[in-house]
């Protein structure tokens, strides 16, 4: 039981990094991305391939996985980021499907539906990370959650972060203020994909195997749920969302009900969360801080971007 809880804590950590990274694009920039699972998968596969075929130091592999994923993010961003919201969502969905298709069909590199297994354990600071030793692994993963949080927090409070938020609030206004909208959107995508790739490496190192079926559309939706439930554009809230969703999804197993509750329970719950949150609390459980310097209270126009107050 304690093992299961530790496992849960590890997964929550990985999902927290993923939702933090999705939060850059969806929460801060206001673009709906449905391919976070693809970046995660690209990162996981990159590190799996490098770990099985080469003897590069783990930290380089971690960095490379992030860079490859972020190149993929820029690749998808180049043609699609000029698209408006709904189209972008579909294009990212398509990219996610293409990625999964490629992982499934590129037998010589990814071994197709079998996936890659037998990935050697990784040595970090003299410790060998054995998946059996869960406590060490918990520390390892949550260290990365902390790093991701701090790095993103700094970036989001900088000029870049302000530009991204300006794009979310009103793209046209941001553009006329001299913000290079396409460039910043691309940055958001690249950054988001980078941390997605890092999370992928952590996944590979922990599971010591990768399989294309782990990186499907439902994962992207689950991440979206975490961001929406916690509160778009608020990093701590997003981590809270990751905790709540993962615990809620595993609740039947935690309470020993897994034989009674059908396997679809988890997904139906995610769907309900999305619909109910959008209708009753679109800002999420916590929501983000909204500057209070508005002089005249404005009514939100039907098609203006996010305009919610906590």
């Amino acid at each position, binding site marked *: 039981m304690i093992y299961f809880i530790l496992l849960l804590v590890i997964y929550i950590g990985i999902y927290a990094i993923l939702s933090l990274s999705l939060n850059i694009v*969806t929460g801060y920039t*206001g673009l*709906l991305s*449905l391919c976070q699972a693809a970046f995660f998968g690209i990162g996981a596969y990159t590190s799996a391939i490098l770990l099985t075929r080469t003897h590069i130091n783990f930290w380089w592999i971690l960095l490379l996985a992030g860079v490859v994923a972020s190149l993929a993010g820029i690749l998808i961003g180049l*043609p*699609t980021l*000029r*698209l*408006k*919201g*709904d*189209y972008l*969502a*579909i*294009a990212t*969905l*398509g*990219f996610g*499907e*293409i990625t999964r*298709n*490629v992982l*499934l*069909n590129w037998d010589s590199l990814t071994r197709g539906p079998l996936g890659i297994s037998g990935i050697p354990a990784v040595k970090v600071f003299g410790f060998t990370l054995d998946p059996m030793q869960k406590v060490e692994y918990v520390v390892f993963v949550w260290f990365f959650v902390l790093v991701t949080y701090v790095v993103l927090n700094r970036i989001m409070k900088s000029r870049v972060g302000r530009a991204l938020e300006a794009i979310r609030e009103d793209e*046209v*206004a941001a553009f006329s203020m001299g913000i290079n909208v396409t460039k910043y959107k691309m940055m958001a995508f690249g950054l988001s994909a980078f941390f997605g790739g890092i999370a992928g490496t952590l996944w590979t190192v922990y599971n010591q195997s990768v399989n294309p079926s782990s990186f499907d*559309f*439902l994962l992207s*939706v689950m991440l*979206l749920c975490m961001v*929406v439930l916690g509160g778009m554009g608020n990093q701590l809230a997003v981590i809270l969302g990751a905790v709540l969703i993962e615990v809620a999804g595993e609740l039947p197993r935690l309470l020993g009900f897994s034989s009674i509750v*059908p396997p*679809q329970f988890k*997904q*139906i719950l*995610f*769907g*309900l*969360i*999305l*619909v109910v949150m*959008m*209708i009753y609390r*679109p800002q999420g459980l916590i929501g983000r801080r909204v500057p209070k310097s508005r002089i005249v209270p404005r009514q*939100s126009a*039907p*098609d*203006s*971007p*996010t*305009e*919610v107050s906590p």
Partner: protein
Amino acid sequence: MVHLSAAELVQHLVNGLTLGAIYALIALGYTMVYGILKFINFAHGDILMVGTYAGLYAYTAIQGSAVGPWSIAVFFLAIVVAMAASGALGFIVERVAYRPLRRAPRLAPLLSAIGVSIILMNSAAFLFGTKSKDFPYPFDNAPMIVKGVAVTPHQIMILAVALVMMVSLKLFIDRSRLGKAMRATSLDMDVARLMGINVDSIISLTFVIGSALAAVAGVLIALEYTVYPTMGTMAGLKAFIAAVVGGIGSISGAMLGGILLGVLETFGVAVLGIPVGLKDTIAFSVLIIILLVKPSGLLGRSEREKV
């Protein structure tokens, strides 16, 4: 490139047209909703799936799996049942999950639609099981060979039904009073309301019609591809791409886009030698190309963004 004889070319064209007719039927639902609400109904494919299950249960309850003298009539009855089920579901979904969000930021209805899609898919998996179910052919589906081209009765039926549906929809929208109201709502919702059009019921009607058309497509493909809880996902995606290619919001565009995408997919595999495993990639590449070259689609009006 693979060299093909004339008969083979015609064969692929027939196959592509049938596939395209299916895409077109589904695409109509996306395009009609988008035309009015400027929003992608992500759950469209799953509404199709639920309707197809309804049609399947209706058919097997009355007819069983044997082919009888009345099986075609029963099949058409099953299509009507599927249309009713999907139509009703489309109506409910719009009421519950989309209407409260009509004045919300753009991201909200989109996320809500994804939620609905997941709920429908998994509820169906829970209720009907994840195993795919066969939809028995209501007739003997042996292909007829005409000058070296094999055409199955199923293909003929798809083309005929799709044609009838599309022509009636076009007539309904262009000629009837309700159709006129729909066009007005799509042009400008607020002014339409001022003109005395009940915009809410027009939107409901749009969802009902779109969902019912998707159900027809669902039952038609179910004969060949069986019925399963995730059947709507890929069909829905492809149809959405078809709608974008044709110009989203345009009825004729959806029809053209659907047919074009069906033909392209068939030819991509048969003529260009794209591996079948990557077949779905064709559609997404087409989407990205069309969005880059002509984002408003082939028949769409380009809209300037207003501040």
